[in-house]
Structure formats: structure tokens, C-alpha cells
């Protein structure tokens, strides 16, 4: 039987350690290497020119390497779902191979393609090579939920067998066996597009700081390993203050596009360490960056809402401000803080910034100063940052904005002090904001504080030639720390004075996770909200005040759903004929005619599948109504989110219990005197169901004595 293979490149733009490509070659009569300009990536206006250039260079390098093996790269324009049926027939394909994509969008796309291939009788072979480990295995080992702290993740990884060894590059001999004739018009049909063809203007485009492609990646890898200083600092890469600039040994964009295999890097580091230290097993910290990447991939792989706050079970709901002007100032480097502006300029021009610089600008945009949602920042990074993986980008933004992963929020990077600490001379500022180049070191991070004479002497008057600072950092950090405290204290039910105790410590690294019995009691069919409420009461009876308070953000996800339903926009409400829920109201009205129904509480047409599943839960209201069929998406999400949300709740709770605080039934224990040390209320603002002044007085006592 003739085997006609197509290997579909997406990420993993390389010939070395490419297991799926090896499968394509294995026993095949013909092999074609294909890249499809994926419109999700390509058509989106959200990808900047530097990222495009990097990709095209990587494709060119791939084509070049394939040419050396008497083959070519076929760049096919279109959408995969439209392109493949044509290719299946045209090329008489029998086998399709590609690298496993662990991200939710990719998984969905790939399963559609696999199904399509099946219909055409084309065998598909998928191999994992973008991550070190099998992510599902990590999740399985953490009791079927992704680890939410890096420590827990490391613990699990340390129990796993080593990653699979990298495979060698494909060679001439392999390729000869499945030689495919290249038609004369190949370059007309399958050439790599230019930036112009993609609609970018390239006049005056400075040369790329980061050159895409596998050859460059391998070159950098050897420099990376050779770098003596780096080797000396093998264990703790500290004091890298000078590395704010793009380094010729940087690898992150190459890992992002798969020009370099993470496993090749892993094993090279490992072997180098063992050679230098003569110890048998290197510490996990050696692989820091690789493991972070793996951590965020694991957290995201089953969470299609990982890149947003709404409907994201691991994301704390923070009342971010919407402020397009402030966002634009940040994104365009016009904040008036040279440290922030220099970083954003470097990002825009070069496509890469140091991780400390990422922390600085992310903190400034979100919890530090501007109080703008991390989602907006993530989108800007997605456009500009060469190494912005979907999972890593969203995950890091959540981490840095303290929206997930149980981060202490007290530590805000100062847009002046942090810069000065990182680059005391201010050379970095002078390079990216040349207008400030004549400022003395003393004022270069805070030019607005320079005396007028100094400003004039430096030919740059603040407010004229360079913007004034857009926000008073001292004032905004004062406000924002209060906001964060408010959010986290509600979340953790903490009401003491300690700032640090506001963030629940989760003990997942210390104790093994227990399987929750209640998890089995409610099957995947039960509506998500009911399911969660059940958890609220069943899993932690000691804190059932949760249930009395609709404002309690113990489970941020649940909170947002309720809020969404309780607070429809007036537009929707006035048009009650259109509502799915209006039907419920009128149905019920048959039975309770004359009873005033609080129609304003009836939920709006839901936007997200999760909300929809809640809206479609009439069993709570009229048990005899036939259950509305939830859309399939809602069903799947319900079943996959339920347990995880639960575990988040459980962890928060556990942290709470761990601190030895008791919550009690505010209502059930009405009239009972409570001990001074007891903490009852979910949040400072929620004096829920207090029945008497006496109770209220005690609450105040608790509030003040808490923290002791």
C-alpha cells in the first residue's frame, strides 16, 4: 500500500526532535511538509509585525533546511478545515501527522481535523513535543486538577520520570526514501508570503533583533551553553542586571515557535550540569524557565477561559477599571515614567523584554498603578511579544496581577525605584527614550522632580517634550493595596488586620489532596451552579455563612455568575418578551396569580455558556418544568469545571481552617454569644443577617480583635 504523508507544521518549526515528522517519514512513499496560514493566528490584527517577521523567517529557514534534503515546505493559504479536504484528494493523502497542541483552541481545531481525516480515510498521527511532559499525566497525578501553585507543580514533576529523550534531526537518508517531486510552479503556489503580502508596510522597518528559525535557535543554544558567566551562575541566575537588553543567547522566542525543542534544551542543561558538578541529578531550579512554561500550559490546557477573568474558575474576580486612554498611554510608552516607557518601547521595537521588565510593566498596568485589567495587558503582549504563548502569556499576567495562583499582593514594583535598582546608570532609559539622554542619573527615572534648570539643560522639559507622570504612584498604590485587600479578604473570609494573611495559604504542597466524596454524588449532568452551591455547604459545613451571603466571593466564579444574573442591563430587562427566563415567570404566574413577582430579579439572556447553564436551571423554580436542554458546550464546561472550581474552593477553605479560624452559622447561632476570637463574617462590608445590635457589637469586637 502506498503511503502518502503530510506533516503539518504549526508550532514545532524545526527538523530536530520532531517526533510527528519522524512518523510522517516512517515507511512513507511520499512526504510533504505543510504550513497553513492559520487565520486565528494570521488574520488577527492582534499579531504585530515583529511576530510575523519572526514566523516568516522561521518558515524560510525550514524551507531552506528542507531544500538541502531535496524537499520543500508547502505553505498553503487558507483555513485548515477548508484546506485539508482539498489536500487529502489532491495529494492522495493517506497519513497526516502533526504535533500535539495542548491549548484549548488548538485541541478543538485538531479534533475537528482528525475527524475530517477519518472521514477521508486518512490516518492521523499526533505526537507530543511542545512540552516536556504529558500535561494530562500531571493533572491526573494532582487528583485530576491542574496544580495551582508552582511548588505543587514541582513536587509532581519531581515524581515523574524524566522527559522523553529528544530525537535526532531528520536526515537525507530518511528523506530520500520518501522523495516527493516538487513541481515547477511550487514557488508560485506554495511560497512563503512576504510581510507586504500580509499587509504590513516595511519601509523603514529596522532589522530584526531576533532572527527567527531553527538554525538561529541551534546556534543560540550552543552560545547559551558556552556562555561562561552563565555557567558559573548555573544554580542561581542572580545579578543579571545588565541583561535588560536582548541577549544573543536568549531562547524564549525560539521555544515559543518551536524552533528549539524544549527537550533538547532540557537535556543539554542537564548534561552540562552533571558534567560540571559531577552530581547525579540536577535540582529542578536548573530548569526554571522551562518549568514555568510547563506550569502554565498545564493550568490552561483544559480551561478555554484561561485568557479572561469572566468564566475563568481559577481567576479571582477583581473590579478592574476600564480606561482606554490610560491603557493606550501604557501600551504606547507615554506614561511619563521613563522606566515603564522604555520597557514598552523596547517591547514594541524588538519584541522581547526581560522578565523583570515584564513584571514592572504588568504590575504598573494592573494592581500597582493603573488598576486596569490584566486581560488588556495580555492582549498588548500578544501583539508585541515574540515569545507570547497563549497559556504562558495569560498565566503570567494572572500571576503578576495577583489574579490567581495565591500570590501575595503586598509587593508592588515602584516604577521609579525598581528601575533604578535594576539599571542604576539609566543607560537603558537613554537607549529607548533618547529624549531623556542628557538627564543626570539622579533624575533619569523621575525627570519631573528635576529642577527646571536641569530640565532645560537636558533639552527636555517635562510636560512639553516628555509627558508628566500620568498617575501619582504613592497615591495609586495606597488605593490599590486597599482594593486588593478588600478582594482577597472577601475571598478568604479573613477579617484581621494582617495584610499577609489576606491571601489564603494553600496547603496543597504539604498534604496530599483528598478525593472529595461529594464530587461523585453530583454527576456531570447536574447544573454547575447547583453543584457549586452544594459544595459550598457540603464540603465545608464550618463556613456556611457563605450560603447566606450572595456577596461573598468565596468562589469567585460563582460570584460572577450570580452577579451576572442579578444584574442584567436595563435594555435586556425592558424587553422581557425576548427572555428565556420570562417564560419561566409567566409560567409560574399561572399558579401564583396575583402574587407580585420581583421580575427585576429574573436573569438576563446569558452571554456565556456557564451563565446559560444557570439560566436553564428551572428545576429550582418549578420542578415540573421539563429541563431545558443545555447547549452541549455548557454541558462539557460544566463537567470539566465543576471539580476544579470545587478544588479551588476547597483549597481556600483549607487554608482558612488551617489558620485555625472558625466560621459559624450566623443565623443558626443567632443569639448565641460568640467567642472574641471567632471570625464570622465573610467580608468587612457584609454584615449579613445580624439579628440584633448585640450581635453587631460583637462583630465589631471580632473585627478589631482579629489578627491576634
Amino acid at each position, binding site marked *: 500500500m502506498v503511503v502518502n504523508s503530510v506533516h503539518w507544521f504549526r508550532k514545532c518549526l524545526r527538523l530536530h526532535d520532531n517526533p510527528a515528522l519522524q512518523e510522517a517519514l516512517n515507511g512513507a512513499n511520499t512526504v510533504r511538509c505543510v504550513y497553513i496560514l492559520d487565520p486565528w493566528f494570521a488574520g488577527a490584527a492582534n499579531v504585530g509585525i515583529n511576530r510575523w517577521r519572526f514566523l516568516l523567517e522561521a518558515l524560510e529557514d525550514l524551507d531552506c533546511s528542507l531544500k538541502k534534503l531535496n524537499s520543500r515546505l508547502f505553505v498553503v493559504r487558507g483555513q485548515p478545515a477548508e484546506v485539508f479536504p482539498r489536500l487529502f484528494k489532491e495529494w492522495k493523502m493517506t497519513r497526516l501527522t502533526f504535533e500535539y497542541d495542548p491549548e484549548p483552541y488548538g485541541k478543538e481545531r485538531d479534533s475537528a481535523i482528525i475527524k475530517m481525516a477519518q472521514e477521508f480515510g486518512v490516518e492521523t498521527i499526533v505526537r507530543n513535543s511542545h512540552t516536556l511532559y504529558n500535561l494530562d499525566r500531571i493533572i491526573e497525578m494532582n487528583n485530576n486538577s491542574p496544580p495551582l501553585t508552582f511548588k505543587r507543580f514541582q513536587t509532581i514533576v519531581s515524581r515523574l520520570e524524566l522527559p522523553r529523550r529528544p530525537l535526532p534531526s531528520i536526515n537525507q537518508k530518511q528523506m530520500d526514501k520518501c522523495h516527493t517531486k516538487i513541481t515547477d510552479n511550487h514557488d508560485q503556489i506554495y511560497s512563503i508570503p512576504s510581510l507586504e503580502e500580509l499587509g504590513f508596510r516595511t519601509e523603514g522597518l529596522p532589522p530584526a533583533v531576533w532572527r527567527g528559525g531553527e538554525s538561529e535557535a541551534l546556534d543560540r543554544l550552543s552560545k547559551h551553553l558556552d556562555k561562561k558567566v552563565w555557567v558559573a551562575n548555573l544554580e542561581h541566575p542572580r545579578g543579571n542586571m545588565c541583561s535588560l537588553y536582548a541577549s544573543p543567547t536568549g531562547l524564549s522566542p525560539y521555544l515559543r515557535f518551536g524552533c528549539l525543542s524544549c527537550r533538547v534544551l532540557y537535556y543539554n542543561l542537564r548534561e552540562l550540569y552533571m558534567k560540571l558538578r559531577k552530581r547525579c541529578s540536577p535540582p529542578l531550579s536548573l530548569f526554571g524557565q522551562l518549568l514555568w512554561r510547563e506550569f502554565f500550559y498545564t493550568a490552561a490546557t483544559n480551561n478555554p477561559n484561561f485568557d479572561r477573568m469572566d468564566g475563568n474558575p481559577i481567576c479571582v474576580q477583581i473590579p478592574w477599571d476600564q480606561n482606554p486612554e490610560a491603557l493606550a498611554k501604557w501600551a504606547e510608552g507615554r506614561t511619563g515614567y521613563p522606566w515603564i516607557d522604555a520597557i514598552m518601547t523596547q517591547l514594541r521595537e524588538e519584541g522581547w523584554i526581560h522578565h523583570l521588565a515584564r513584571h514592572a510593566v504588568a504590575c504598573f498596568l494592573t494592581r500597582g498603578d493603573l488598576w486596569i485589567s490584566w486581560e488588556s495587558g495580555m492582549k498588548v503582549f500578544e501583539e508585541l511579544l515574540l515569545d507570547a504563548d497563549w497559556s504562558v502569556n495569560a*498565566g503570567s499576567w494572572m500571576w503578576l496581577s495577583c489574579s490567581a495562583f495565591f500570590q501575595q499582593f503586598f509587593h508592588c514594583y515602584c516604577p521609579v525605584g525598581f528601575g533604578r535598582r535594576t539599571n542604576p546608570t539609566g543607560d537603558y532609559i537613554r537607549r529607548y527614550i533618547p529624549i531623556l539622554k542628557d538627564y543626570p542619573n539622579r533624575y533619569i527615572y523621575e525627570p519631573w522632580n528635576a529642577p527646571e534648570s536641569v530640565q532645560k539643560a537636558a533639552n527636555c522639559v517635562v510636560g512639553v517634550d516628555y509627558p508628566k507622570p500620568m498617575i501619582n504612584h504613592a497615591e495609586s498604590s495606597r488605593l490599590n493595596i486597599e482594593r486588593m485587600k478588600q478582594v482577597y479578604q472577601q475571598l478568604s473570609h479573613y477579617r484581621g488586620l494582617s495584610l499577609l494573611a489576606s491571601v489564603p495559604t494553600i496547603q496543597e504542597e*504539604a498534604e496530599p489532596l483528598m478525593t472529595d466524596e461529594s464530587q461523585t454524588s453530583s454527576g456531570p449532568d447536574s447544573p454547575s451552579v447547583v453543584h457549586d452551591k452544594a459544595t459550598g455547604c457540603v464540603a465545608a459545613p464550618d463556613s456556611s455563612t457563605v450560603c447566606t451571603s450572595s456577596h461573598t466571593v468565596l468562589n469567585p466564579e460563582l460570584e460572577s455568575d450570580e*452577579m451576572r444574573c*442579578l444584574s442584567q442591563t436595563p435594555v435586556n*430587562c425592558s424587553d422581557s418578551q425576548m427572555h428565556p427566563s420570562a417564560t419561566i415567570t409567566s409560567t409560574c404566574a399561572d399558579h401564583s396569580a396575583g402574587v407580585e413577582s*420581583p421580575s427585576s430579579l429574573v436573569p438576563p439572556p446569558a452571554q456565556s455558556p456557564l451563565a446559560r447553564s444557570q439560566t436553564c436551571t428551572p428545576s429550582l423554580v418549578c420542578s415540573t*418544568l421539563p429541563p431545558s436542554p443545555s447547549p452541549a458546550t455548557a454541558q462539557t464546561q460544566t463537567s470539566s469545571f465543576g471539580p476544579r472550581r470545587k478544588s479551588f474552593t476547597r483549597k481556600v477553605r483549607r487554608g482558612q481552617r488551617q489558620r485555625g479560624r472558625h466560621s459559624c452559622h450566623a443565623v443558626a447561632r443567632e443569639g448565641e454569644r460568640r467567642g472574641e476570637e471567632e471570625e464570622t463574617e465573610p467580608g468587612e462590608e457584609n454584615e449579613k443577617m445580624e439579628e440584633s445590635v448585640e450581635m453587631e457589637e460583637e462583630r*465589631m469586637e471580632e473585627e478589631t*480583635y482579629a489578627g*491576634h
Partner: protein
Amino acid sequence: MKRGLQGTKQEDGGGTSSGSLKRSRKQRRDAELDEEAVHWECLPQEVLLHIFQYLPLLDRAYASQVCRGWNHAFHMPELWRCFEFELNQPASSYLKATHPDLIKQIIKRHADHLQYVSFKVDSSRESAEAACDILSQLVNCSLKTLGLISTARPSFMELPKSHFISALTVVFVNSKSLSSLKIDDTPVDDPSLKVLVANNSDTLKLLKMSSCPHVSPAGILCVADQCHGLRELALNYHLLSDELLIALSSEKHVHLEHLRIDVVSENPGQQFHTIKKSSWDAMVRHSPKFNLVMYFFLYEDEFGPFFRDELPVTHLYFGRSVSKDVLGRVGLTCPRLVELVVCANGLRPLDEELIRIAQRCTQLSAIGLGECEVSCSAFVEFVKMCGDRLTQLSIMEEVLVPDHRYGLDDIHWEVSKHLGRVWFPDMMPTW
């Protein structure tokens, strides 16, 4: 329910020989339903109330549509004592707002039931205005607690002062029994505080008014003089005076439990006044267990007047950079310190300062360090001295400088050993 009935009717309409059979089945079903309905209807109101208290508002709303009894229960005053108004504009917030119809209904039917009310307001001026509009309609209610909370920017500050004040004084005048008032970041002023005092002096226990620029030291002094039950107070340093501390420690005054001071500089190089040690001493004598929480948002060179004399601070937060010198003084002057958070410091290690704090601050149980440097050995020494009383230990990984004794890979063992529990430094992603 509806569809079930319709279905049966249709069947009846096409009645055949088996019609009677079907009817009897239907009757039986109805009987079962009736039985159930009777059963649920008979739930005593107090039981219903108890159940309803555990249900979120939305579910209560659904339940209220079941029958008259449940609808009645929905409107029971007990369920409306506490309410949080969320006022957000779609253009400025990601979160949804309390529906205007619900607000209307509450004002119409439940205003006199409200006791514990808070307003969460986003960064838009419209939201703050809406909050004031609601406030000015709360004429018939007697609030016990009121919180005005800006969730993003301080939007109440954007309102005309008079507008805000007149809405707020409606509550002050009508409530007469306010015990807790949170009005941080609002344009409240001295005269309105006088109204507050005139109407609520017997009941006021908590007052939070950080960053209220229109209040003067005399205004807050008036509150402290009249409201002898005041136990919790939050304000900015510029309102703090010796007189205020003396007033709070007068014999007539209950023990103060919690004083929160925000130290913010309005303009660079600002000179801060000092508080006499004798005033603090009077406070500690009067309220030996009181917590003094201080948040500093100063430049390094503005710390001059602080930490010169003994200060009974319990929770200390340095939001901006603080010098080695000041931290050294903290160790000498803050014997009651419970929590210390340092967001940033220079490049020189804080070794001696931390060890001094461990020696002198024997109550210290929580510490957080951000952009600082401490040698691993000094840090281990610090933890060893504090031992397991350190319940919160949040140290950024970059803070710890490896030295000849400990590297980063083994420090967590050493620290865990002294703490008696597993401990790791806080990490930031290298990304």
C-alpha cells in the same frame, strides 16, 4: 408543569376507549402533585425564612414565584436588613451592576428594613452619583452600618462636595443609630461630621475615613470628643494630633481597639509633624491592647520625624522604598510590632536590621519582604530567633542572597526546620 398539563389535555381531547384509564392515571398524578404542594406550602414561615437566608438573592427570587407563601417569605424584613448596592457602568467596569428595578423595589418596599448597607462604586462619576441618589432616598431607614466603597478610582471625590454631603447627612440625620461608617476617599467635611456626631454619638463605634481631604484635625477631634464608644478609627496622618490621642484616651472613652493611620505625602519633600511620646503612652495606658496599623507611602527622605521615639505600632507597612536606617530604627522603637511588610529597600542587605527586629520585637509574627536584600545566613538567623511564632513569612525569592553557608536550594529546608512547617520563598515567573 405547564407542558405536562397541556400534554394531558391533548390526550383527553382525542379521547378513545382508553380515555378513562388515562384520566385515572392523570388524577393519580395530580393527587401526588397536590400532596407535594401541600407539603411544601405548609412549611412554617420561620423555617422558610431560615432556608431563604441561605439562598442567594437570585434563587430567592425564583423561589418567590412558586406560591404566595414563598412570595411572602421573599419579602420578609429579615431578608432585607443587609444589602450591597453595586453601582457600575458598562463603560468603566467589568462587573455587572445591581439592576435599577431592584433598587427601586428595595427603596419602595424595603428601605425601612435596611440596616447594613454598602455601596460598591466603580470609577465613574455616574456611579457615585447614583449612590448619592439612593442615599438621599433613605429617609425612613435606620442604618446601623454604612460603607461607601470605591472599587477602582475614588469616584466620590469627583462629585460636587455639596451634593455628596447633603446625601450623606440624610443618613446621618435619619439613622440616629449608626455604629459603623466607612467613608474612605470621599469629600466628607467637618460640618457633616458634626451632623454625624450630633445624631449618632451614642452609637458610633467604627469610623473609617482615610484620605478625606476636606476633614481637618479639628473635625476629627470633635468626633473623638463626643463619640465615647468609638473603638475603631482609620484616618490619614495629617489628621492625627496629640489632642486626638488624648481625647481617645480620656476616661469617658471606651478602649480603642484599632487605629489605622495612612502616612501619605501630598507633595515631595513634605515635612511631617511629630506626635509626642507622652500622647502615645496615654493611648497605651488607656487601651493596652489596641492595634496601631500604619501604612507608609513616603519617599526615603521623608521619614525624618518617624521612629525617633518609641511607637506602639503593631502592623507596619512600607509601601514604597524605606531606608536601611529607618528599618534599623524600627527595631529600636517598635516593641509591639506584630506584622512588618517592606515592599522595597535599597541594594544593601538588611541583615543587622532584621536580626535586631527579631531581638526587640518579641510579638512579631508576620513579615513580608519585597524588593530588598538579605543574606541567606542572616535570614536563617532571623527565622531561628523568631521560631514558630512567625505564622506568616512571605519573602520574595530574589530577596535572599546566597552566601557561603546557604544556597537558594537548601535555604527552604533550613527555614522550614526552624519554623516547624514546610516553607518556600515566594516566586515570580521567569518568563
